[in-house]
């Protein structure tokens, strides 16, 4: 397929996943901040401030607790490139460019989501209109992205196009999870056991899965371990990296000597090794950081191999 189209699809996937995970995180924080914390030094620190930090925002004004404005900025502020609305708008622009490749239903699903989110859904009676307010808008985006991915999975051919779309989504999900863990995990060596890491699970939508898979109470370390290594949970970093390996192997013409494929497969093996080697209560921030850097390198390799170097790769009839 066309290198330009592959690039657009990859970023379409990234933007959709980004919007979805922003929505999930915002909703979790919004719910949590309505109530106070029960202890003075909670095991994980994840509030509006952490949320902004997670998106790479270093604003000069001090973040007050229960900062409703921060949530507003992350959701419906069109001026902020990192906001949920901006991600959806970018996804719509991308989808417009690849309208001939994605199915009509999928384009409609994305377009309707963007229209619904704009101006609180007043425009042309887009239904269902997105309710205004950070929490309700997040709910809306969560539902709509689920619909979009559902439509994509049911209506798109499992070809290169779908691979690049999925690849973008997967890399973005693992990146978001890692970002959140890096912000929220306690730096101290002590391992507090206060059950407050629930918010992390809620922020990625893995609460129920955790309860069924892990017997340990939702404290910081086991939760982080679950989100990093649990392959049975589809949004964990290890599961994403595994799937990433699968889609690149399908999309690549010569996966045996392809840089991104090799790098992904090494990362997958590495995560598996760490899971076995590390004791249950081990500290995980270092691994989070390394993994995130490795993902950034994969992103670069992907751009070089599939999106830019097409002219140099030689003729192929």
């Amino acid at each position, binding site marked *: 397929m066309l*290198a330009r189209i592959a690039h657009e699809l990859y970023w379409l996937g990234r933007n959709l996943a980004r919007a979805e995970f922003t929505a999930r995180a915002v909703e979790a924080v919004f719910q949590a901040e309505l109530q106070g914390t029960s202890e003075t030094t909670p095991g994980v620190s994840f509030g509006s401030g952490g949320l902004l930090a997670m998106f790479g925002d270093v604003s000069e004004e001090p973040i007050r607790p229960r900062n409703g404005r921060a949530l507003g900025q992350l959701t419906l502020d069109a001026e902020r490139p990192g906001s949920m609305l901006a991600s959806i708008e970018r996804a719509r622009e991308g989808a417009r460019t690849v309208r001939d490749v994605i199915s009509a239903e999928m384009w409609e699903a994305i377009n309707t989501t963007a229209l619904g989110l704009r101006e609180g859904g007043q425009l042309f009676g887009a239904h269902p209109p997105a309710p205004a307010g950070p929490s309700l808008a997040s709910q809306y985006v969560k539902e709509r992205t689920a619909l979009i991915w559902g439509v994509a999975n049911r209506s798109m051919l499992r070809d*290169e196009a779908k691979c690049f779309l999925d690849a973008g989504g997967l890399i973005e999900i693992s990146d978001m999870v890692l970002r959140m863990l890096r912000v929220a995990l306690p730096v101290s060596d002590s391992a507090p056991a206060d059950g407050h890491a629930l918010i992390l699970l809620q922020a990625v939508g893995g609460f129920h899965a955790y309860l069924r898979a892990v017997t340990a109470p939702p404290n910081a370390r086991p939760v982080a371990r679950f989100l990093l290594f649990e392959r049975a949970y589809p949004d964990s970093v290890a599961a994403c990296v595994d799937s990433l390996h699968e889609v690149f192997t399908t999309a690549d013409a010569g996966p045996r000597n392809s840089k991104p494929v090799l790098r992904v497969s090494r990362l997958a093996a590495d995560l598996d090794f760490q899971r076995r080697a590390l004791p249950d209560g081990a500290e995980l921030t270092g691994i989070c950081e390394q993994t995130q850097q490795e993902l950034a390198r994969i992103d670069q390799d992907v751009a070089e191999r599939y*999106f830019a170097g*097409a002219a140099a790769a030689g003729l192929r009839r």
Partner: protein
Amino acid sequence: MGTGVQTPAIDGYRPQAPFLDELFEDDGTPRPTARALVEELRRLGPEGLIEAGRRRDAIFMQQGITFETKGADDGEGATKERPFPLDLVPRVLSGQEWRDIKRGLAQRIRALNHFVDDVYHAREIVREGLVPWRLVASCPHFARAVHGIRPPGGVYTHVAGCDLVRHSDGTWKVIEDNVRIPSGISYVLENRAAMARLVPELFASYRVRPVDHYPQLLLSALRSVAPSAESEATVVVWTPGPANPAYFEHAFLARQMGVELVEASDLVVRDDVLYMRTTRGLERAHAVYRRLDDDFVDPLEFRPDSLLGVPGLIRAYRAGSVAIANAFGTGVADDKAIYCFVPDMIRFYLGEEPILENVKTYLLSDPEVLAHVLDRLDQLVVKPTGESGGKGVMIGPHADEVELQRMRRVISTHPDRWIAQDVVRLSTVPTVGVDASLQPRHVDLRPFAVFGERIDIVPGGLTRVALEDGSLIVNSSRGGGSKDTWVLEDGDDADRAGPPIADTQPPALPDLRYGAWTGQQQQQQQQTR
């Protein structure tokens, strides 16, 4: 249908004399083909039309079937996305009417194709003295770069859209040819899909011929001209990019044909062969349906400042390694000055009498004609030869004295850049107005023809409608809308039997029980198995 007394059209709808109304007789009774349609419209009522209109706008916005307009009201000039204006009252053509139009168009397009071939080769029509060479060579779309190139199958005008109008005496006339990159077919297909969703009841008593096979017609035509011996030809649609107003159509066609939509940055010419950049290196493209003007396609041969073009494309085209639709240089055949000669072309190349007439046109380069035209400018339509999309058109009877004076000056300075035509009394079709009442509005028709191994014309075409009262300008860039165009199948609804069902009895759906459930039935069922 009643006795005719209680059918005063739709609540006071009156055709506007002297214009022909396509759904109603002059006295306001519905024409025979329109009776059922009018009945359904009446049943729908203003509320039904308003509601359907609201749903239409929502659907078009969701599907992104929009066009961008400059916000005139806020004065800021900010572009605004608006849903494509589809009118909910369809236009109805009988099977017989359509057959005549179709024959006429096929004949005309064949002649135009001959003409393009002739202009870039032997120029026989010029030597016969039928078309002055001066006119051909001075045409802005005449392309010296493609002299002597004959594309596969000798087809140049793969996609053609001629604009037809219906005069008040009922005859169809060609008002303009378009054999470069006619656009609008996506709206024909989307309009039909939307109508079937919004007002299915209107279709109830009719058998309307389908239009949705157009992309397949186009694809097979493109495949048939593609120079690819060994494998299935790779066809691509070439768009200038998402900023182009017709981008929706480009993406639509690429998706419907299942081919790649490429931009210039995706294409590269190596050793006279066209390739596209893919994730797996360069892959060859055999046929290009291009949707940008000649001027921009190749900076080496046409405009050197074009950033939208592919350097070396003409070389590849000349080498015959790629088919281009429509061929380069076809613009010479749809020039407004060449238009007058099309009937002569039909007689010269095909030895036939033209089936569709031209509108009476005056070439102003002749001083006598010019003087005559200047005298009666207020009764004529004046058009610039080099423009399209209704730009620069002046309609004499609608113009005031100041405008007429200005136009007289402009024309006298450059008579060869203008043509004058008799005013055509465009037919009208009832159209939903702002208050949901029906008003007569003027329409034209652009059928789309695909020329591959043969000429195929999709039943109907794009009906454009002037949404303002009395306006004769139907271009969507100037406030026009569109209508679904129905070509009816012959015969009435009675013989609508549908294809026979295969004579097999599939097993019943598991775990479904029809009727009241009793043990006895269960036993019977088991016995029959």
